[in-house]
């Protein structure tokens, strides 16, 4: 039976049900319990976003608070994953990848290849990305392209509660390292989520709005803006096909190519900075594989090539807006 719950609740439920099912699943991160060793509540925080709240009471030391040492504990999660555990480690903000990146891209992501196919590293790194709450330059980045660039790591970006639960369970059960990226402005989005356990395979994009005029490709929070743009454009008779990628690596380019072959026009929306981004990645693949079908220049809607500004006034201009998406769609139509 499905209920209307938030992304926050959907992720918690995925943890709860997988931990119940599989004793090798453990969770770790800064303050994911919160209050370990302090005089107040045992799980005072349950994670920076309260995702883990309640799990400590049920699973005890299978949730681990960590010192502020991302290299050490994410590396430990990776090491434990090669020794039979299925750890989920939280990198509180994706912006912090710079203090632990080696363990992710030189270790976890490469083990299988370097070791001649003999390693399995079923680790999930859960993290939060994106701008929109005035958290400024070092707590608002998207950075998904950096992970997507690296072979050996899978990149997951859910946009709905249904996807969040199904993709998290898939991530935990997957035998490759996964970085699970949640947009910080999506936690309270609600949607129907089945009570039972289910998985969503990687590399299966979702067509979240159908149309024949223009293809819009996006992921995470931006997928919602793309749908919003499509709805507004529909009022003017413009029919957009909106594709929510759900996973960036592996990526479902078939669905994208098929759609572009039908519409002949492509707008890619990515909150990341533009250079070497997901937007440019998809554009390039389409320009290579669906060139003949293209009837207009590909449009990319991204953040500008600047850090994220603090001021809410500036941040508003920074993040790709529904309006900018509409403008880009109209631009492709005028061609």
């Amino acid at each position, binding site marked *: 039976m499905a209920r209307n719950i938030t992304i926050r609740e959907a992720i918690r439920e995925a943890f709860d049900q997988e931990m119940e099912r599989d004793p090798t699943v453990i969770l770790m991160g*800064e303050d994911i319990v919160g*209050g370990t060793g*302090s005089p107040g509540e045992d799980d*005072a925080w349950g994670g920076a976003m309260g995702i883990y709240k309640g799990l400590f009471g049920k699973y005890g030391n299978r949730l681990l608070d960590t010192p*502020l040492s991302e290299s050490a504990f994410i590396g430990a999660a990776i090491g434990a994953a090669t020794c039979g555990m299925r750890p989920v480690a939280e990198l509180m903000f994706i912006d912090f990848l710079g203090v632990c990146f080696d363990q992710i891209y030189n270790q976890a992501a490469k083990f299988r290849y370097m070791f001649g196919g003999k390693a399995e590293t079923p680790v999930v790194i859960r993290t939060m990305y994106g701008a929109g709450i005035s958290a*400024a330059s070092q707590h608002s980045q998207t950075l998904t392209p950096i992970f997507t660039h690296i072979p050996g790591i899978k990149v997951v970006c859910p946009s709905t509660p249904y996807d969040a639960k199904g993709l998290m369970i898939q991530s935990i059960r997957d035998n490759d390292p996964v970085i699970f990226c949640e947009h910080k402005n999506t936690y309270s989005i609600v949607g129907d989520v089945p009570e039972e356990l289910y998985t969503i395979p990687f590399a299966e994009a979702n067509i979240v709005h159908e149309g024949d005029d223009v293809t819009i490709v996006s992921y995470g929070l931006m997928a919602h803006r793309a749908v919003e743009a499509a709805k507004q454009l529909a009022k003017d008779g413009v029919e957009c096909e909106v594709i929510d990628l759900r996973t960036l690596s592996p990526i479902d380019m078939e669905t994208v190519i098929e759609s572009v072959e039908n519409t002949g026009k492509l707008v890619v929306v990515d909150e990341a900075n533009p250079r070497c981004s997901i937007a440019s990645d998809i554009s390039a693949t389409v320009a290579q594989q669906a060139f003949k079908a293209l009837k207009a220049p590909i449009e990319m809607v991204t953040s*500008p090539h600047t850090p994220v*500004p603090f001021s*809410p006034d500036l941040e508003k201009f920074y993040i790709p807006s529904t309006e900018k998406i509409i403008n880009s769609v109209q631009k492709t139509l005028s061609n």
Partner: protein
Amino acid sequence: MNDNPVPLSRDELLRAYRMMKTIREFEERVHVEFATGDLPGFVHLYAGEEASGAGIMMNLRKDDNISSTHRGHGHCIAKGVEVKGMVAELYGRSNGTCHGKGGSMHIADLDMGMMGANGILGAGAPLACGAALASKYKKDGSVGVSFLGDGASNAGNFLESLNLAAVWEIPAIFVVENNGYAQSTSRDYAVAVDSYVDRASGFGMPGVTVDGTDFFAVHEAAGEMINRARKGGGPSLLECNMIRFYGHFEGDAQTYRGLGEVEEIRKNRDCLKKFIQQVTHAEALTHSDLDGIDQEISVLINEAFDEAQNAPRPTEADLLTDVYISY
């Protein structure tokens, strides 16, 4: 140990008091304004920790450099960053210290030797080493001071910096502001060693622990370290044991704290109260000296908030400037 309980000149004491009180009033007002919902972003208050910043900064010159943390307002004020610009920055206005682009976690004023608050824990330590290294080439006797919390004292970039500073024998001071918590995580849980003196020893560096709520204790210990560093005596580490009055950030429900913990520390471990008690008891300053300063600060803070709330906001054109010096 100095026999005089308040071994500073009257002018210095007045300056120290002004520093601490300005920080306190600044933070108390931020606390109030944040609750109204007008202040954007993450805000971490330094209230309760003023004696550390002031005790150290009273030993510093303008050309000394400090690198700060996410909890940086106090360090900024003590290092001389202009208060009105700071408030405007918290509001994200274009006349803010960083023109609204940085916000609370990124206030910097390189002209004042303030290398920036920092949203990345431990990241300021290498930067302060850089300032200390530059001092060695410039031969100007300046020092680099890195502030860190107890949480950040477990971060690799900080730990590497201790070794680097000792190897290079640079004038770097590492100040661990140990307030007992990293967010909700207790220091006793997360830091594997009881005393930071031992952690410093592991990197061949002298370390000292002081009561960080006692301005004079901080001032004296820091003074010795800083003077030694200025003379080429190399780096050292100072642990200031202290407390924070508010939550980790504004909005933190603080359920990890013991019952009555906050009330108790406000009552018995308020560094400002302690300072007032010390200077008045020693008859170095009078209550009316302090009252005069209080009034000036009150005016300053009121003006700063009024002006900031009415200050101009950055416009879309500002979005694309300041990325590169030339491109």
